[in-house]
C-alpha cells in the first residue's frame, strides 16, 4: 500500500529530504542528529516500515565497527583514556567522534529510505525528466537494473552451485574468488541491460522534445506546511550554525553547553513540530482512507 506521503508533491518531499541531508552533513551535534533520527523514526513508524529501519541498522553496523576501530587506532587526541593496548592509548573522545560519524552515515541511509517511502517514484521520474532529463534517465536505468540484477543473481547462484563453485566458502578471499564468475556475468548483463534501456528510451522519443507532464501536481495545504517547516528548519539551522551553537568539537572538550544550548533547543523544537505534522497528516489520511473503504 502506498504511504500517505506519496500524495505530497515531488518538490515537497525532495526539498524536505534535501534539508535533512544538508543538516546532517553540516553538524556533529548529537542532539540535533538525534532530532533528525526521530523524524526518520516517525516516518518509518507511520508507514509501518520497521523492516527498513532494521535493514538500515544492519547495513550500518559493519561500517560503524570499522570506522570506530580505524579512528581509535589512528587518532591519539582526547583527554579521557579508556585503555591501553601495546602501549597505545585509546581515548573516549575518539570513540565518540567515530560513533557520531557513523551515526551520520546511518541517518543518510535513513533519509534515502524515507525519501523512497514518501515520494512517488513515477511522479518524480516524470517531474525530473522534464528538468534534468539525462541525469534522470541515468538514475532510472540504475534503479531498473538493481532488481533485475538481484533476480539474475539468484539464478546464477543456482547455476554455479551446480557447476561446483563453493559459494559458501569461508574466508573473505575465497568468497570473493568464488563469486567472481557470477559478478562478471552480472556486470556484462547490466551493461547490456543499460544499453537496451537506453535504446528503448531513444526509440520512444526521450530527449526529443520539451516534455509534458501526464499527471501535473499542484501544491496542496500539506505541501505548503511541510515546505514552510522545512525552510524554517533550514533557516533556523543556518542561524544557529552561524552563531556557533551547532558545533560539537569533542576533541577540544565537549562540555554540556556545546551539546545543549539555546540554538540546539530551537532546532529540537522545530524537529518536534515537523514530527507532529507528519504524524497528524498520516493519522488524518488513514482515517479518510478507512472512511472511504467503509463507504
Amino acid at each position, binding site marked *: 500500500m502506498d504511504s500517505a506521503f506519496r500524495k505530497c508533491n515531488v518538490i515537497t518531499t525532495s526539498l524536505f529530504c534535501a534539508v535533512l541531508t544538508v543538516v546532517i552533513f553540516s553538524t556533529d551535534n548529537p542532539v540535533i542528529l538525534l532530532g533528525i533520527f526521530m523524524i526518520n523514526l516517525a516516518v518509518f513508524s507511520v508507514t509501518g516500515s520497521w523492516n527498513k529501519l532494521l535493514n538500515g541498522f544492519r547495513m550500518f553496523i559493519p561500517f560503524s565497527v570499522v570506522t570506530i576501530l580505524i579512528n581509535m587506532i589512528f587518532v591519539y587526541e582526547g583527554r579521557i583514556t579508556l585503555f591501553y593496548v601495546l602501549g597505545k592509548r585509546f581515548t573516549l573522545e575518539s570513540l565518540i567522534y567515530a560513533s557520531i560519524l557513523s551515526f551520520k552515515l546511518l541517518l543518510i541511509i535513513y533519509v534515502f529510505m524515507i525519501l523512497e517511502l514518501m515520494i512517488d*517514484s*513515477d*511522479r518524480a*521520474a*516524470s517531474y525530473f*525528466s*522534464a528538468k534534468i532529463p539525462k541525469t534522470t534517465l541515468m538514475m*532510472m536505468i540504475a534503479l*531498473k537494473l538493481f*532488481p*533485475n540484477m538481484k533476480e539474475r543473481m539468484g*539464478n*546464477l547462484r*543456482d*547455476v554455479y*552451485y*551446480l*557447476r*561446483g*563453485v*563453493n559459494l559458501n566458502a569461508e574466508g573473505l578471499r575465497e568468497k570473493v574468488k568464488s563469486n*567472481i*564468475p*557470477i559478478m*562478471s*556475468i552480472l556486470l*556484462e*548483463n547490466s551493461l547490456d*541491460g543499460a544499453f*537496451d*534501456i*537506453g*535504446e*528503448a*528510451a*531513444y*526509440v*520512444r*522519443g*526521450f*530527449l*526529443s*522534445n*520539451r*516534455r*509534458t*507532464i*501526464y*499527471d*501535473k501536481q499542484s501544491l496542496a495545504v500539506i505541501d505548503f506546511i511541510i515546505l514552510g517547516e522545512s525552510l524554517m528548519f533550514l533557516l533556523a539551522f543556518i542561524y544557529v550554525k552561524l552563531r556557533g551553537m551547532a558545533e560539537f568539537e569533542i576533541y577540544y572538550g565537549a562540555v554540556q553547553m556545546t551539546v545543549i544550548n539555546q540554538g540546539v533547543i530551537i532546532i529540537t523544537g522545530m524537529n518536534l513540530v515537523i514530527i507532529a505534522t507528519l504524524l497528524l497528516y498520516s493519522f488524518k489520511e488513514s482515517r479518510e482512507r478507512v472512511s472511504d473503504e467503509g463507504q
Partner: protein
Amino acid sequence: MKDNNSYIRIEGLSYSYPEEKGNVLDDINVEIGSGEVVFVCGDSGSGKTTLGKCITGAVPGFYGGTMKGSVTVNGIEISRMKHSERASEITMVFQDPERQLLMSKVHREIAFGLENIGVETSHIKRRVWESMQFCNILDLWDREIRTLSGGQKQKVAVAAAIAYMPKCIIFDEPTSQLDPLAAEEIIALIGKINRELGTTAVIIEQRVERCFEISDKILLLDKGRVCFYGSREEFYSMEGRDWSRYLPVHLRIAKHAGAVEMPASIKETRRLISAISEGAAAQPYNEDSKRLDYDLRGNKEEQLRIKGLSVGYGSGEVIRKLDCSVCRGDFVGIFGPNGAGKSTLLKAVTGLLKYRGSITVEGSEVSRYRNREIGKVFGYVSQNPNDYISKDTVYDELRFTLDNYGITDYSSIEEVLKELDLEGVRDKNPRDLSGGERQRVAIASVLVNKPRILLLDEPTRGLDSQLKLQLGKLLAKLNSEGMTIILVTHDIEFASEFCERYLLLFSGEIISSGTREEVMRDGIFYTTAANKIFRDIAPDIFTVSQAKGWLSSDGR
C-alpha cells in the same frame, strides 16, 4: 518495382555496426504499403532485428555504424525526421519487456512516451486509458509493473506503443520470452491493432504459426540479404531452396500433400487431408519408431524416484504431493502453463530448493548430497546460455567446471568438444559465438563433468527453427548414448519430436504422464499442430515428419 503508394521505402540499404567489418544488411530493397502487416523471418543473425532498427532510426541514430542507401517513411528520409516526429510516427516493441519498461506503474509507463514527445497533458490521459482499454488491461492500470507476468508486461509495452497513435509499429520478437498462451494473445493483439487502427506492423518473429496467418507479406532474410519478399501465397508456392520451415505446420503438410493453392486455414488443410484419406485405403498409421525403440530398450531401471513431493515459496505450495519416477536413459519432456511448477520441480530435484517428501536419485536422498556430489549426478542447463559464459575461451569455460570439482584430468574436455562439434571454436571467446554455439557451450560446460542426468530448463527459448533442430539432434544423440534427459519446455512441437516420455503439470500436480500417444492424443491445448489436423484420421501423428511419412506411405 516501385510502388508509389508505399509507406516505407528501403532502397539499397547496407549497414555494418561500428568496429565490425562485414555488412549485417546488404543491399536491401523493400517497399511496405500503408496498413500492411509484414512478417520478417530468417535464421538467427540474418539481420532481421537490424532491419527493424533501421526503420525506427535507432540504426544508425543510436548505434552509429556505417549505413548506405536510404529508408524513407511517408516520403521523408528517416534520418531527416525530427526525433520527436520519428518517435510519434514509428515505434517499436522490444523482445524483452523488462528492458523497455521504465516506470513503476502501468498507466504511468504508457504515459511516459507521450510525455517524451510533448503530447499535451489534456490529451495524454485519454490516450493512456484508451490504450489500456484497447489492450484489455484496464484492470492492471495501477499495478506495479514488477508484479505482472511476462505476457502482461508485453501487453503494457504494446499499449505504450499504440498510445503514440503511430503509423507503424515494429515488433521485435515480442513473444520470444512468453509462454504459448501469452504469445498467442500478443499476436492476436497485433492483428487487432492492424485491423482496427490501420497501423502498419512489421513483425520480426521466430514463432511462425500465428504470425504467418495475420501477415500480408513475408520478408525472408538470409545473411543480410532479401531472399524473398511477397505475399503469403507466393511464399507458399516458392520453388528452389527449401524455406518451408518458415511455413506454419498445416501449410508444410498441405504442401507435402501436393496442394498447389495455399489452403486459407487449418480447416482447409484438414479437409484436404480428409479427402486424401478417403481416396485411399484407410488403415491405421503405425509409424511409431520412438515408442518401439523405447519399449525394446527394456528401459526399466529406476534412476530418479519422487514421492509425495511438496515444494513451496513462502506460504503457498507450488508443487503438491507429486509422485513420479524416471528410468535410466529416459528422455522426459515436462510441460504445462506458467506457474505449474515445472522449473520448481527441476530445482527441487537438484536440491536447490527445500522440499517435503522424498526425492531419491540412484537410491540416495537428494537432500543428503553435498553440492560437489550432486553436480556429478545432475547437469543443469538454465534458460539463458549466457549464464555459462564467464571465461575468455570455450576451453577455459569447460575447464572451469572441472577445476571446481578438483578434477585434474582434462581429457573429458576434448571428448565433449568433439561430441558437441565445438572443436573449431575451442579457443574462441564464447561471447563472440552464435546463439546455437553458445547453447552448445552451456551444455558442454555441464557435460564435461559427466553427469548421469541432464536437466534443461526451456532450452529452445529464443532459438530459430534450424538451431532447435540442431539442439534436438544433439540431445537425441546424448540420450542414445545412455544419458537420462529431463527437459522443461513450452515448445510442444520440439518435445514431441525428440522426447520419449511426457509429464503434463498443472498447478503443481501431474495431470497426465506417459508416452506421446498417451499424453497428447486427446490433448485440447497440449498437443501438436500436426495432431490437431490428423487426429480424426491418424491420431498417432504428432510431427510434420510423421505426417510426411503418412502422406508418402502406401498404408494410407
